[in-house]
Structures are given as C-alpha cells and as structure tokens.
C-alpha cells in the first residue's frame, strides 16, 4: 500500500486514529494474537510476523522505530525457527521464549490498565470540595525544596542555552599576510577595484578583519588609496601612482 500523497486526506486522519489505537508494537502483537485466538506460549511466529508486517505497512507505522524494531525481531525469530534442529536436542532454546515472556508480561500490564482505568472512572463519579479558601497570609513555614523542582528548573535553564558553552574563545588568527598578498596581486593587475573584489562574496568575519587591517596597513605605507563616497558606500581601492620609492 502506498503512502497517502496528500497529508490532509481521509487516510491520514485514519492514520492518527489507528496510531492511538495501539500504544506500541507489543499492543499490536497482542491484538493480532487475540484476533487469531492463538496460544501465546506456542506462538505461530511465521503467521504473526506476516500479519504484523502487513498491518504496520497498512497503517504507515513502518515509519516508527519501535514498530520497525519489532518487525525485525519477528523476522529474525521466524528465520531461526526454520533452522533445522536435531530431535531431542536439549541445547535448543526456543527463539520465541524471550518474546513470549515479554508478551505475557505486557498482557498482564494491559489487564492492570483495565483495572486502573475502571478505578479512575469510578473515582471520577465523585467530586471533591470545589471551593478552596484563600490560603492564610504570612508567618513563614519552613522552606522546602523538592529535588524534582530543582531538576525541572535545571532543565528549563539548560533549555535556554543554545550551547551550554558560555564564552569559548577560539583562537582564530587573522590572516593579514594572506590578505596583503591578495591585495597586492590585485594592485598589480588593476588600477582600481572594489572591496568586494578583495574579500569575495562568502567572506567570514576573519576574512573581513584580515583584509581591513591589510588595507589600512598598505594605505599607511602609501601603496594604495582607499576611498568611500559616503557612509556605507562601497569602498573603492585605487593604486597610488606614482609609486613612492621607500
């Protein structure tokens, strides 16, 4: 079955419902087992594995890691069951044993869930006192700090930090020499050029700083003339001619 092309189709609405229908791969497996009325302890693994794969692909659950992992496990067990074994082999361990144990355990949990759900529903038939008087103001009670609260606060705080590192100063030396060489090459080729010609389109802050310092240094030495029409206007660099002899 192909995935729905449009996410807002009936298919996807159904998908959400189905997703909520099972609380996990074990729940889905139990559902299949009960539907087929097969014995958990003697699980017809080949049949169940095929059904499991069919259902998760149908529901689009084959995108969910937990379901995929279970699918892989089922296929592995299925393969192991096909391996020949000698009759009366005491060493043979049923490859289904671990899965069966988990299923039984999970089935027990489901039974408890029903019990808990019923208890909660029954309790919900009774209402407690709705009105709570204003808590009395004043005298300080002993201070209580709950470890959970402190941890929650730590989590909130850490969530605020994009990187937990505060100020990590990374030594990234400016490459003034390289920039100077670049400018000198340009000076040799052209009489004038712009700022953009020196730093290029994708310049880092380090490139910009290096180039700027190199420009200032060269201007000071009288190798070039830096000119800007106005604030924020493009910087024009002109070769200083005639060259000064030093």
């Amino acid at each position, binding site marked *: 079955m192909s995935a729905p092309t449009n996410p807002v189709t009936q298919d996807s609405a159904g998908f959400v419902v189905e997703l909520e229908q099972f609380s*996990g791969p074990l729940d889905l497996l139990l559902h299949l087992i009960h539907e087929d009325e097969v014995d958990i302890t003697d699980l017809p693994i080949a049949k169940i594995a095929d059904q499991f794969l069919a259902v998760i692909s149908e529901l689009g659950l084959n995108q969910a890691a937990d379901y995929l992992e279970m699918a892989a496990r089922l296929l592995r067990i299925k393969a192991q069951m096909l391996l020949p074994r000698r009759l009366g082999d005491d060493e043979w361990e049923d490859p289904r044993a671990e899965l*069966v144990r988990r299923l039984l*355990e*999970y089935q027990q*949990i489901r039974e408890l869930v029903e019990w*808990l759900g019923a208890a909660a529903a029954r*309790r*919900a038939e009774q*209402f*407690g006192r709705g009105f709570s008087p204003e808590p009395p103001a004043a005298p300080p009670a002993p201070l209580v700090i709950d470890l959970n609260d402190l941890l929650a606060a730590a989590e909130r705080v850490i969530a605020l930090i994009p990187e937990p590192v505060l100020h990590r100063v990374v030594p990234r030396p400016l490459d003034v020499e390289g920039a100077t060489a670049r400018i000198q090459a340009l000076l040799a080729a052209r009489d004038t050029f712009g700022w953009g010609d020196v730093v290029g389109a994708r310049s880092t802050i380090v490139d910009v700083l290096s180039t700027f310092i190199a420009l200032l240094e060269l201007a000071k030495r009288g190798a070039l003339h830096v000119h800007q029409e106005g604030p924020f206007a493009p910087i024009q660099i002109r070769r200083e001619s005639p060259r000064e002899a030093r």
Partner: protein
Amino acid sequence: MNPLAKLVEAALFASARPLTVDELLTLDPSAGATAVRAALAELRDAFATGDHGVELIEIAQGWQFLTRREYAEAIDRAQFALRPRRLSPAALETLAIIAYRQPVGRIEVDEIRGVDSGAVIEKLSERGLVEIVTRGEGLGRPLLYGTTPQFLEILGLKDLDELPRLEELSVALRPPAPAELE
C-alpha cells in the same frame, strides 16, 4: 457531635485534597491520634446515613468528603464542577508499571512497554502522579520513579495494597520472572 469532630469537619471542608490523621492532628495540639480517629468515625457515620449529598471516605492514606455517586451526572450536567481528564492508555500503562515495580527506572518501563516512555513519564510527573523517589545502583545511578499520594487519590484507593495482586490476574506472571518460561 463532639467539638473535635466539628473542627475536623470544618478542616476537611476547607481542603481540596484528602487530609491524613497526622495532618488533622495539627488542628488541635492537645488532641491525640485516637481522638482524631474517633472524630473521623463519628463524622463518617453522621454522613453515611444516606441522608446527605456528600460522604466521608478514606482515600490516599487520608480522609476526604466527596459527593455521593448518584449526584455525579446532575453536577456534571450543570457544569458546577469538572470531571478530571481521563488518562490515555499509554499513561495508564506507564502508571501500572511504575505502581507495581516501584522504585523503577525509565529504561525498565521502556522495555516492558516496548516503546520510549520518557515523554509519558514526564507528563505523569507534571500531573503529580509519579515522582523521582530515589536513585538506582549501577551505571549512572539512574533516577527511579514511584507513585505519589495523588495517584491513589485519582484512583480512589486507600493505599497501594488495594491494587489487585498480580496472582489474582488471569495472566499469572510474577514481576521479574525471566526464568519462569523455561
């Protein structure tokens, strides 16, 4: 009604949650636990005659006045009070595991449920139904969770002993039993 019973009645009416005998003892420093228990019994009987709309019940290791069941629908319909939000199956599963295995770590819950339960545990913790109770031994000393009095409260249980025993369930499997299937 004896004076202590009236004071206890007032205190229980003033509280939105169950109060334990220990908490009620702070009302009157001169009263002992026996007197408080007698007052609670007197109150319970006074409201138990079926001649009241509320009753005094023992819940979450304490005592609380609650409206009688038969009035739930009318109060709900008139919207004078809200019913608690129902818990999702995933939340109930996680609660069941934590209730029976406590103190229990997240990894164990994940393993039993077959899915990541971190978000569910966090929700349950926010709702005050589970809390970190201690830390486990071993690698990383994991945080271990247990249920709170509020868990008992939303289920209407006196204490954890009122949960069904595992051997009473139709699927008989005692907690960690990896050896049993062999």
